[in-house]
C-alpha cells in the first residue's frame, strides 16, 4: 500500500541524494556479423546494432518520465570484437571501432563497450591484432570502450598479455595526451571478467549470452550515506542492516526499470548489477559512506574493513530485490569519479597500496587512477599482475584502469570532465619490476581452481 512517508522518501532519494539508474545497457551479440571481408563485417555490425538499439535511448527517456527517475547513461555492449577480427586476418581492425562509433552516433548512446579480447590463457587469431590496435582505436573514437581479460582463476594469468598491456595502456595515454590522456580512461584490463557487465569501460557481451538482452546498473552511494547519517551511534551490525534495507530499495528500482525496458524493447531482461557506482557530484561518493562509518578520511587504517562490510551488505540487501543479479555487483572505488576519493588521494591518505588492499574486498579494482606520465610500461604491467593475482586467488573480478598522465608529475591533476571526473597524479614505486615482466609465460592457476 502506498503511504506518505514512503512516497516522500523516494522523492527525497532522487531529488536530494542523487539516486539514479546509472545505466541501461543493451547487450548485443555480433557473432552473426562475422565475415572474411572486413568492410562487409563492419557494415553488418553497424546494421545489427542500429536495428536492435535504435529505440534504446527513446525508451530510456520514456521510462525516466514514467517513473521520475533519471537514467544517466544508455549504453551498448557487444561481442568481443577480437572474435570478429579473427575471421579477417590482415585487415585494419580499427575499422571495427569506427563502425561502432558510427552506430553509437546513430543510436545516440553514451558508450559502446566490447572493443575487447579475452586472452587469459593465450592469444588466438585476431586477439593480438585487436590489442595492438587499441591505442589508435581509442584515439580516433569518442564513445568506444575497450577491455582485455588477461587472467582467470581457472586458467591463471597470461603474463605475455600482461607485458603487452603495460605498453598498450601507456601508448593509449600518449595517443590522447592532448585530451588529458582520455583514451586510457576507456581501457580496462581484467582478471575474471564477467560476461554480463553493464558498466563501462569493461562491458562486453559474452558468448554465452543470448542474442540481445537488457542489463541495468543502479547507483546510490548518496542514499546509503544519508541513511547511515541518521544513526550516528549505531553499532556496525546495525549499520549493516541499514545498508541492506537501503540496497534493497535501490535494487528494486533497478529491477523495475529493467523489466519495463525489456517489455518496451521486446528483448529479454538480463541482470541487475548491484554496484554502488559513485559520481564526482557532491553527495554521491562511496568514500563518504566509509567516512560516515567513522573514518576521518577514506584510505586511513580501517578503510578495508569498512569497505568489506559495505560491499557485503549491499549484496545481501540487493540480492533479494532482484530475480537476476549479475554483472560486477559490489561497491566501486574509481578514484577520479568519487569526490571523497579525490580529496583523500590529494591529501595523500589514499594511496595505490591501500587501494590495492581495498580491491581484495570489493568490486572491482584499481580504477581510474592517475599515475605519473613517466611510468614505465613494465611498472604498469607489474601493477596489472598484482591486481590480477588478487582476482585469481580470491575467485573474484579485478581490473586495472590506470591513466598515465603524459607530461605530468605528482601534485598535478588530469581533468576528464563529466562522470569520469578528475584525478590527482598518484605516486608509484620507483623500483623496477622489468625483469619479472620480461620473463613472459603464464602464472599457473591456483590449486582451488581444480574443483571438478
Amino acid at each position: 500500500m502506498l503511504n506518505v512517508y514512503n512516497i516522500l522518501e523516494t522523492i527525497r532519494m532522487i531529488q536530494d541524494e542523487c539516486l539514479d539508474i546509472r545505466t541501461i545497457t543493451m547487450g548485443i551479440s555480433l557473432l552473426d556479423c562475422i565475415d572474411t571481408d572486413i568492410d562487409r563485417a563492419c557494415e553488418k555490425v553497424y546494421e545489427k546494432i542500429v536495428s536492435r538499439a535504435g529505440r534504446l535511448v527513446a525508451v530510456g527517456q520514456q521510462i525516466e518520465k514514467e517513473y521520475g527517475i533519471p537514467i544517466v547513461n544508455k549504453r551498448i555492449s557487444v561481442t568481443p570484437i577480437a572474435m570478429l577480427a579473427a575471421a579477417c586476418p590482415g585487415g585494419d581492425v580499427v575499422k571495427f571501432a569506427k563502425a561502432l562509433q558510427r552506430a553509437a552516433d546513430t543510436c545516440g548512446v553514451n558508450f559502446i563497450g566490447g572493443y575487447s579480447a579475452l586472452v587469459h590463457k593465450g592469444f588466438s587469431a585476431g586477439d593480438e591484432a585487436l590489442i595492438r590496435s587499441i591505442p589508435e582505436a581509442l584515439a580516433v573514437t569518442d564513445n568506444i570502450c575497450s577491455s582485455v581479460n588477461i587472467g582467470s582463476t581457472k586458467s591463471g594469468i597470461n603474463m605475455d598479455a600482461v607485458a603487452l598491456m603495460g605498453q598498450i595502456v601507456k601508448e593509449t595515454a600518449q595517443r590522447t595526451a592532448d585530451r588529458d590522456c582520455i583514451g586510457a580512461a576507456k581501457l580496462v584490463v581484467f582478471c575474471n571478467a564477467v560476461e554480463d557487465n553493464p558498466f563501462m569501460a569493461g562491458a562486453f557481451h559474452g558468448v554465452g549470452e543470448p542474442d540481445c538482452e537488457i542489463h541495468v546498473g543502479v547507483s546510490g552511494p548518496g542514499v546509503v550515506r544519508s541513511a547511515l547519517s541518521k544513526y550516528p551511534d549505531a553499532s556496525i551490525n546495525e549499520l549493516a542492516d541499514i545498508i541492506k534495507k537501503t540496497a534493497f530499495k535501490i535494487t528494486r528500482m533497478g529491477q523495475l526499470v529493467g523489466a519495463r525496458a525489456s517489455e518496451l524493447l521486446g528483448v529479454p531482461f538480463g541482470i541487475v548489477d548491484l554496484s554502488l557506482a559513485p559520481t564526482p557530484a557532491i553527495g554521491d561518493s562511496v568514500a563518504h559512506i566509509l567516512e560516515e562509518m567513522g573514518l576521518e578520511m577514506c584510505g586511513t587504517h580501517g578503510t578495508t574493513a569498512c569497505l568489506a562490510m559495505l560491499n557485503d551488505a549491499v549484496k545481501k540487501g540487493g540480492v533479494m530485490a532482484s530475480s537476476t543479479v549479475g554483472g560486477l555487483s559490489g561497491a566501486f572505488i574509481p578514484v577520479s569519479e568519487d569526490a571523497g576519493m579525490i580529496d583523500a588521494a590529494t591529501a595523500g591518505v589514499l594511496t595505490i597500496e591501500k587501494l590495492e588492499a581495498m580491491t581484495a574486498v570489493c568490486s572491482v579494482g584499481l580504477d581510474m587512477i592517475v599515475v605519473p606520465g613517466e611510468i614505465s610500461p613494465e611498472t604498469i604491467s607489474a601493477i596489472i599482475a598484482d591486481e590480477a593475482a588478487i582476482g585469481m586467488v580470491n575467485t573474484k573480478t579485478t581490473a586495472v584502469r590506470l591513466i598515465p598522465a603524459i607530461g605530468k608529475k605528482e601534485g598535478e591533476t588530469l581533468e576528464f570532465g563529466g562522470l569520469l571526473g578528475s584525478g590527482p597524479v598518484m605516486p608509484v614505486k620507483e623500483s623496477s619490476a622489468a625483469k619479472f615482466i620480461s620473463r613472459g609465460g603464464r602464472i599457473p592457476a591456483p590449486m582451488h581452481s581444480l574443483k571438478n
Partner: protein
Amino acid sequence: MRAVVTVIGKDNVGILHKVSGICAEMGANVIEVTQSVLQDMFAMIMLVDITGMDKDFAELVDRMSALGSELGLSIHTMHEDIFNSMHSV
C-alpha cells in the same frame, strides 16, 4: 494504472484547483488526495487513475512540472509502481 502527484512548496491560493484542473483536462481521474499545510508550507499527495487518459502520460508529467515552475513549487508525477516496488517485498 495509477500515478502519484506530489506537490511541495509555499502555500498559495488555488494550488489544488490548478493541479486537479490539469488532471481533468488530461482525463486523469483523481482518486485520493492527502494534503497538509504546516505553517506556510504546503504538501499534497494526489493519487490519480491514468487508465482512461486520452493523452500521453509523459505529457501529464511535463504539464505538472511546468505548473510547478510557474508557481515556484516542486511537483513530481510518477507511476505508482516505483513506490510499490521500492517499499514492499
